[in-house]
């Protein structure tokens, strides 16, 4: 299936990704090639195949969960240490509400 530049723009918007004009054109071509390749899967009849939704299906895996016990988190100071713009114990960001 062809992927147009406007498809690329729509996907980029969903992914919160700004792209240059050049990137949009390049991705349209490359994504179309990759999507054409993965359509190979349609050769297979999977009508009665249940999807493998997660990897731990082996009976030996025994992915037991832990008890629901409260434990120490990182704490505010450590959690903010890598923040680009911390302010008074918060993550500061640009204006959230956009003007119409």
């Amino acid at each position, binding site marked *: 299936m062809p*992927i147009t530049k406007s*498809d*690329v723009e729509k*996907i*980029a918007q*969903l*992914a*919160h*990704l*700004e*792209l*240059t004009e050049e*990137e949009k054109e390049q*991705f349209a071509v*490359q*994504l179309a*090639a*990759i*999507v054409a*390749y*993965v*359509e*190979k*899967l*349609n*050769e*297979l009849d*999977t009508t009665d*195949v*249940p*999807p*493998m*939704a*997660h*990897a*731990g*299906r*082996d009976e*030996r*895996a*025994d*992915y*037991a*969960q*832990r008890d629901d016990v409260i434990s120490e988190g*990182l704490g505010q100071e*450590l*959690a903010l*240490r*890598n*923040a*680009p*713009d911390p302010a008074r114990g918060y*993550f500061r*960001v*640009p*204006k*959230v509400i*956009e003007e119409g």
Partner: protein
Amino acid sequence: MEIIGLTVDRLHEALRARATSVREVCARTLERIEALNRQLGAFLTINRDEALRRAEELDGELARGDWRPLMGVPVAVKDNICTRGLRTTCASKILHNFVPPYNATAVERLLEAGAVIIGKTNCDEFAMGSSNENSAFGIVRNPWDAERVPGGSSGGSGAAVAADLCVVALGSDTGGSVRLPAAFCGVVGLKPTYGRVSRYGLVAYGSSLDQIGPITKTVADAARVLQVIAGRDPRDSTSSNHPVPDYLAALNGEIKGVRLGVPREYFGPGLDEEVKDAVWRAIHRFADLGAEIVEVRLPHTEYAIACYYIIATAEASSNLARYDGVRYGYRAEGARTLREMYRRTRHEGFGAEVKRRIMLGTYVLSAGYYDAYYLKALKVRALIERDFREAFARCDLIVGPTSPTVAFRLGEKMADPLAMYLSDVYTIMANLAAIPAISIPVGLSREGLPIGLQLHARPFEEATLLRVAHAYERAFPFSHKPPL
């Protein structure tokens, strides 16, 4: 004594005999890194001061007669595995300044076992790539031939082990990222069963596929590292309760009666003749050692890459949503609104391959395409897993090449993403089926480049995998060294 190039057991003999100290080992290793890293590009961060401080601490323990399983072993850690207080970038501009406030569980266990973190290794950005050319901080050169790639995505770890810039390394393997660099660099790489090693602190790429694994000079060293890092972790709900056996004790040289399955699909078109010959020669050697060779089928092999690139990118597009410039890492300057800040941060912070995979993953998950692509891929994944279950009814291990070619040239596949993806044709099967696999070196090409052989086992049968690989290595040691 010469302490560069030692394996863990040789290093331990020397430490026990007081022929060297942890401090000397680390200092010599750091010197070698400083001498060779400019040309190889294997390390992004060198942990010099802390490594030497810790070495002295461990020498103190040794003097008191204390011992630990990885005592004094210089370890290189892939830069997508969190190390407390030590920059962890995922080879991405978007995390260029990230200093984790905690250790990955695998790192924590290495430290408890007495290892020394010598530095953080280069990789493809967020582990997305097969050649290490997608790093934001420069390429890694293959120690065997500076014009060739080391394989990816754990290319820095593979090159560091091959070039003796560390004794062992950690990599991560989502579609072959431990095994491919191991094959291209002539060393051993193990991808454990999904859930065998905790993923806590491994920066997520494809969460249903990711596993941390060792890259080492010998199979015994891989067993030693796995012994330390394997096991349940309350911080990773997909880590398994399955008991961890004694992997070193399993290395008894026994190979008689082991049924080795050879899948016809792993020897089809696209496989380089020299690689094919070397792998077949090794299969005959397994037979000479007493293994029984049986033919098996993995009929869905040809669908694996398509299946993988849907599932891995879908998971990646979701996992990488967290890099938005709010809590850590890079933030674009001067954005007037939050949304603009997100979009520009991600535009400026991510490289081309990461953007491509986020785009593909977003597309296959988007309304109208989810069933056609993502759900379809999950069903094909189930078929691939079933292929292995059926094959393992007839054999104990499955053998084949790790990669269709030896290390390719720098730049050769960068213009064609799909051609690059095809390098993973034999490795991604293990990730999709959640089974363990190991790559071991079995020879050199006419041009002097390493050739890797891959063995797969049933889930949680790493002990069998290691035992058979070790028996081969003992009978036919790979004694070549890169011309550095």
